[in-house]
């Protein structure tokens, strides 16, 4: 956000505050005149009002949580986008009982992920290691299964005092420079996995995929943010990678992402995992691993390293051989 847009935000919020708090007619007229003539002001106002709704929604949830649990345990920051079917599946089963007036009011759903009581053991379906030089092929999302794609990355041996976590090679995720004006500063690598070719005998559904990766920040004085994202699709890899990103918003596509923050004092390799419900008939799994430094606006933001990547299918023991 540049200084022009922040000063526009300030002006809009000041006028809005005057209208609401003091019913100031002249402020109301000025606000409406500004919105009438300035498209940038309209876009900024719409964004600010949506953010206000997000704020109200967050605070409302917090106030409910504090009523239920006055002293919640501290939890590390994480952002999870639950797959849509996973979110609404419990609602569907209750759909017959939902009357019109109910779903049009503000409801708080006591959503609890279905925890299975049976033991679930992992079937490792992908653990390639990074010992083969020249593994990176495609820029961005790979066009076929089994290849790595990257925004800006390379397979390297020990460098900058960082040793691979496993074997002799690891992946270096180069930072995305500010001047590139990219949509995101997260430096990402991508892999497309053909689930049809994996040996998963007996897994017929109700399974989960677990993606695990380890990261290391080269600089010691910044907070790093790591990303694991997984998308399961019912198309073949060739079809799934065509027009891929819009598909992640579609109904029926399972898409989950989680970010993990690590503060500067926590130096070393850090391993994170993400679990994704695996829908029946899933043929392709696309996973994305990324890293960025948070609030590091220096000309040379930090490099991150990635190693020990594994994908496992967690299935109930009874469905395994």
């Amino acid at each position, binding site marked *: 956000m540049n200084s022009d847009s922040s000063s526009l935000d300030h002006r809009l919020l000041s006028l809005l505050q005057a209208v609401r*708090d003091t019913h100031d007619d002249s402020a109301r007229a000025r606000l409406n005149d500004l919105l*009438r003539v300035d498209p940038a002001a*309209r876009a900024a106002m*719409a*964004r600010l009002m949506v953010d206000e709704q*997000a704020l109200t929604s967050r605070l409302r949830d*917090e106030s409910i949580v504090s009523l239920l649990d006055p002293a919640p345990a501290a939890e590390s920051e994480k952002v999870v986008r639950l797959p849509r079917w996973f979110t609404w599946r419990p609602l569907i089963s209750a759909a017959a009982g939902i009357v019109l007036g109910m779903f049009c009011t503000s409801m708080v759903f006591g959503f609890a992920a279905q925890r299975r009581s049976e033991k679930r053991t992992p079937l490792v379906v992908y653990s390639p290691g990074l010992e083969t030089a020249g593994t990176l092929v495609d820029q961005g999302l790979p066009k076929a299964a089994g290849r790595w794609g990257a925004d800006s990355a390379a397979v390297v041996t020990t460098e900058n005092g960082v040793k691979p976590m496993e074997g002799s090679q690891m992946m270096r995720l180069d930072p995305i420079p500010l001047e590139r004006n990219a949509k*995101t500063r997260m430096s990402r690598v991508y892999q497309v996995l053909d689930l049809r070719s994996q040996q998963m005998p007996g897994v017929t559904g109700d399974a989960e995929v677990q993606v695990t990766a380890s990261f290391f920040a080269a600089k010691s004085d910044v907070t790093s943010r790591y990303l694991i994202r997984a998308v399961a699709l019912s198309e073949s890899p060739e079809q799934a990678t065509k027009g891929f990103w819009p598909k992640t918003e579609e109904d029926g596509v399972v898409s989950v992402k989680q970010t993990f923050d690590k503060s500067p004092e926590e130096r070393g390799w850090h391993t994170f995992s993400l679990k994704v419900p695996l829908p029946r008939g899933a043929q392709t799994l696309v996973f994305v691993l990324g890293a960025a430094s948070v609030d590091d606006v220096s000309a040379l933001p930090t490099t991150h390293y990635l190693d020990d990547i594994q994908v496992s299918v967690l299935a109930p023991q009874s469905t395994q051989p």
Partner: protein
Amino acid sequence: MATSAQDSSRFIAALTRHQPALEAFCHAQLANRQDAQEALQATCVKLWEKSGEWNADTEFLPWAFAVARFTVLSHIRDRMRDRLVFDEDVVLAMAEETEAAATQFEERREALGSCLDKLKPEHRDLLQGHYIGGHSVRQLSGTTGRSESAVKMILLRLREQLSACIQRQIRICP
């Protein structure tokens, strides 16, 4: 209305999933929580009445926004002008930008989570009191011991900080 149990289930699922974005749209068009709730409720009723027209193979949200636009305008025409923040022509002019912003509601709400974590507890309490407790600036001035102008300024700066933080978060992890 939806013609079969399966259609009804899909419709209810889509409506439930997208209701937060619709609420954000109504709020952004009306800038008043009570009005936004009423407009949202009218929109849901209208969507249910028109559910038979929705093709489940098409995106739900653009269709729902089109219905919401009409119910918001209808709501404005039924209200006294002095209760409204935006004039009707401005609401019309802003509709497209509002749809674009509301479509991103979930992403922005997610990003806001870590932004709120960075706030001082007293600032979070102030936001909680104002936006959830419905306390006026004067009431907050009384409970915090700060002047009204100081409370106004803090609330204004917090809103600016949070919006800027959301933008940064989305750039880091869209």
